[in-house]
């Protein structure tokens, strides 16, 4: 195993490729995410996306935000060689909805909103509320881990270069 700080910088690209691939899969093969997570869930892009193009030793950042923002700028950035570095996602399971932002380089989760939990009225309610929150947090972590594991399986196989990259390229150029 590599030194942790070396590995963090060396493999930032992997998280960014994961988020870029996830955008493609959400648009083209959403059912695949259900199969991967074993749950009937729906991923959609939320209200924020950050893309970075680090090609040619220059860094260009494009930030798209707002509930009704179009993603054309993001597509244009992909066309120029950028990758998604930060993505706000919404995941729905039946009536329940989770929303959060995930960062490619760290896989850190920020701004996580989970489905509403029971109100805390007395001190005795706290433990139950905490366990309910943990359950809802673990669901999201489980889904992300499952999708990331699936992505890695593809990324580390010949399917990535032979099938996935041409498909993503076609999507970007369409």
């Amino acid at each position, binding site marked *: *195993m*590599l030194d*942790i700080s070396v*590995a*963090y910088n*060396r*493999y*930032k*690209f*992997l*998280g960014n*490729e*994961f988020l*870029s691939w996830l955008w493609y899969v959400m648009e083209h093969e959403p059912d695949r995410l259900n199969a991967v997570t074993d749950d009937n869930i729906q991923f959609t892009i939320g209200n924020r996306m950050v893309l970075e193009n680090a*090609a040619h030793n220059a860094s260009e950042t494009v930030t798209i935000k707002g509930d009704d923002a179009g993603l054309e700028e993001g597509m244009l950035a*992909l*066309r*120029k*060689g950028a990758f998604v570095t930060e993505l706000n996602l919404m995941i729905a399971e039946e009536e329940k909805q989770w929303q959060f932002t995930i*960062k*490619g*380089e*760290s*896989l*850190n*989760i*920020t*701004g*996580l*909103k*989970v489905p509403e939990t029971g109100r*805390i009225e007395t*001190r005795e309610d*706290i*433990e139950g*509320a*905490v*366990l309910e*929150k*943990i359950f809802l*947090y673990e669901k999201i*972590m489980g889904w992300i*881990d499952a999708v*990331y*594991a699936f992505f*890695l*399986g593809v*990324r*580390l196989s010949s399917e*990535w270069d032979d099938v996935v*990259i041409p498909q*993503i*390229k076609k999507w*970007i150029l369409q």
Partner: protein
Amino acid sequence: MGILSSNASIARYQVLGQLSDPVMDTLTRLLSQHAIEEIDAESIDKSIGWTSFENPFKPDFSQSSFVVGIYFLFAFRIDKKAIPAKVVTKQYLLEMERRLKDSGKESLSRNEKKQIKEDVLHQLSLRIPATPNVFDILWNYEKSTLWFFSTQKSANEEFESFFTKTFKLNLIRHFPYTAAMDFLTDVQKDILEKLAPSHIME
């Protein structure tokens, strides 16, 4: 922003190693030994330490109060006193003026000025209360995983080093490489070691 917040931020870790048996006694002892110390009445400008989840301003780790289901739940607190520079300057100039008047001198030596500044900072830090920042921690001891409820770089770094100092256990942060190490086969790990970034549009 903590575990019960409507808007949470989470950094994930793997904990390497185990606490010495009996685990609950060890954890209670170490949390108590390294609990946050109040500095409001001290001239210290920063304090860090563990505190209780339910009552972060009155740490109490007795009677397994940090156990929730199969998890350990407690918090990390960073207290800092921020004395505005303009307040320091004002008090420093006033004190200089007073000393010049009292001594009848026309000017003060470099050492006297230095001493006045130190005295002013000492007096102000006794009067200004520390600002507390509380970060919840959820530790699944069986699975050796831990969630820190903040993604602020400085808070994470302070937490990591204080955790290792307290428990003599190392933390590995969850990020694309370490997350991959959790489930890849040896063959896949070899491929990952040599992996280069993709250039989709070239």
